């Protein structure tokens, strides 16, 4: 039996569409058929009563834009027929995290406050992907305003299920992105990473996710959470597809001055060159977790899940057999400060960014009578925001208040310097370790069950313990599938590198992928796709 078109890699789809052997519309039909098969009832703002069948489906899409997608696919097919270049992503089905603006479509941030917002313009990364021939299927679910690590804080429910076991979370905040790609509903997805929001769901769903260097991809048209941390990036099923997608999206943008003007390398060019001579580090600080007791604040340490540690060590051995030099014992002593610093920095930035939602210019407005403008603000925000935005705004107000700001915000920004220094020392070409990349687990555990952690905002945040340091430091990170645990749930491996080293990380990831191609776990399929 031949694989459905939606299960092929983006490279293969684009190649066939460009050659005229497959029509973009046929690829679109294949993706829509898969969506009908696995998606289940559409997430909505209606009062939510969980049904048993919800936990057998994916529920990734907040909005499907089928007509728009059909017009795009027909446009690609017409280009091919007329002998014009349809672009390197010709006909590839794309799901966009609903935190990006797409002109003329609903852009909700998974929040009631933006539920009816129709974006007047398109985000730069989306515009570039569409210009390259990608066919946007619609907008996928996320934690409200990206605030979460499980996708359970969305205002649009049912929340997405993990395709490998829909009773479990897909991770977050780009949970809809990772779930849609894992289930073959989309071939690529555009996500964002602020503390691990691309890499953690990619790990939980057994797909590839990359947080590029801060500034590598424009944030224009991205609804802001923490502006000094937010990074758009690719979610895909193969490393090669992530490289292809990043090459299309990355680069300077006149609409975003934080988008670096560095030339964009051809990430596909050296992808098959292997790892010979590369120095890849392992750090003891990424094999244990240090976290505070929620009652007392006292610090506890415990090792990461042994199966996950074993997967990391086996990956290191495999890379060593391919000529990489493995450097053990690399100190990253400030790793455990990543979450506390993030609790402060991200909340201050979120509170600032969320002040724009006022019921006046766009979004939800309280419809009843109000005495004055202040009351309209309060009532609109009270009804429009869910618990997570409210919590983040309040925390941001507190830690940036004049009397606490030095103790918290300024201190957190200095701690950020220390975290950055760990990476600078590890990657320093004249330093002791001279690493090209650091290899670790992406997450301390595999996907947890729905409702198991949600509600405890501290425990939830610690799901990002191994991913958040790279966000503070701005350096790039790649998560790739690294096997399955005893319960058949995906394990994610993380590669971190110096600023703008995406090509190297992708090359290492591709080497591991190629070397494990024949293994049994590579043939396993997510539960929603098993007959």
């Amino acid at each position, binding site marked *: 039996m031949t694989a459905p078109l939606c299960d092929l890699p983006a490279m293969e789809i684009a190649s066939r569409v460009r050659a005229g052997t497959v029509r973009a519309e046929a690829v679109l039909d294949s993706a829509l058929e898969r969506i009908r098969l696995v998606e289940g009832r559409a997430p909505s703002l209606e009062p939510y009563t969980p049904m048993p069948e919800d936990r057998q489906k994916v529920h990734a899409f907040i909005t499907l834009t089928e007509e728009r997608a059909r017009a795009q696919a027909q446009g690609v097919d017409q280009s091919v027929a007329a002998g014009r270049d349809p672009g390197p992503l010709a006909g590839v089905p794309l799901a966009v995290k609903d935190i990006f603006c797409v002109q003329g479509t609903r852009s909700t941030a998974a929040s009631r406050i933006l539920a009816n917002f129709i974006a007047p313009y398109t985000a730069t990364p989306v515009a570039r992907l569409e210009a390259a021939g990608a066919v946007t299927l619609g907008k996928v679910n996320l934690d409200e305003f990206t605030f979460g690590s499980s996708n359970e804080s969305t205002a649009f429910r049912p929340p997405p299920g993990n395709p490998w076991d829909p009773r479990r979370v897909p991770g977050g905040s780009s949970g809809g992105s990772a779930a849609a790609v894992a289930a073959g509903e989309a071939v690529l997805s555009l996500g964002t990473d602020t503390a691990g929001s691309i890499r953690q769901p990619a790990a939980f769903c057994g797909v590839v996710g990359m947080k590029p260097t*801060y500034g590598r991809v424009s944030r224009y048209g991205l609804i802001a959470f923490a502006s000094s941390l937010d990074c758009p990036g690719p979610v895909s099923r193969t490393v090669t597809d992530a490289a292809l997608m990043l090459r299309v999206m990355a680069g300077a943008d006149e609409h975003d001055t934080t988008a670096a003007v560095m030339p964009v390398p051809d990430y596909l060019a050296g992808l098959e060159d292997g790892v010979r001579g590369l120095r890849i580090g392992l750090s003891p600080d990424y094999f244990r977790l240090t976290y505070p007791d929620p009652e007392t604040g006292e610090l506890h340490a415990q090792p990461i899940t042994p199966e996950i540690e074993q997967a990391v060590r086996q990956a290191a051995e495999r890379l060593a057999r391919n000529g990489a030099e493995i450097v053990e014992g690399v100190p990253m002593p400030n790793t455990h400060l990543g979450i506390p610093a993030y609790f402060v920095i991200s909340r201050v930035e979120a509170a600032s960014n969320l002040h724009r939602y006022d019921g006046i210019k766009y979004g939800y407005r309280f419809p009843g009578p109000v005495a*004055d403008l202040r009351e309209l603000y309060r009532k609109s925000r009270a009804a429009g925001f869910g618990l997570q935005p409210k919590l983040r*705004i309040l925390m941001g107000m*507190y830690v940036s208040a004049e009397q606490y700001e030095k103790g918290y915000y300024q201190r957190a920004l200095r701690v950020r310097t220390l975290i950055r220094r760990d990476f600078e020392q590890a990657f320093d070409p004249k330093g002791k370790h001279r690493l090209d990349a650091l290899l670790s687990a992406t997450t301390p555990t595999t996907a947890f069950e729905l409702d198991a952690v949600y509600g405890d*905002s501290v425990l939830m945040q610690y799901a990002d313990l191994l991913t958040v340091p790279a966000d503070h*430091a701005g350096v790039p990170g790649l998560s790739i599938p690294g096997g399955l645990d005893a319960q058949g749930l995906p394990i994610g491996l993380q590669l971190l590198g110096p600023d703008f080293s995406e090509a190297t990380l992708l090359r290492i990831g591709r080497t591991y992928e190629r070397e494990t191609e024949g293994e049994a776990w590579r043939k396993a399929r997510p539960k929603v796709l098993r007959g």
Partner: protein
Amino acid sequence: MADAITAEIFDHLVELAALELQPAEAEYLRAQLNSQLNAIRELEAMEVDPGIGITSHGVPYTPAISAVPRADVASPSDLADAILKQAPELDGRYLVVPDIPHTDLT
């Protein structure tokens, strides 16, 4: 351990944040805030060398990778209608707001 964020401080924060909360929401959020403060106590307690500078974003913006600010020239946009269309209440091309709290000086 006494809550750092007392009911009084909490109410002040809610006012600053332009929010209004149901009692159950307020109770949950205040408990979560105090729990988060416990989690960041480590930060408050640690010695940080005052010589360590702040990092406002990770990647240093050197001239080599920074965009040159574009010329300060106004250019027409055709988005005005689409933007106005998103406003919950309009009067012609004006945004409608309720009474703005004010004090008459006369």
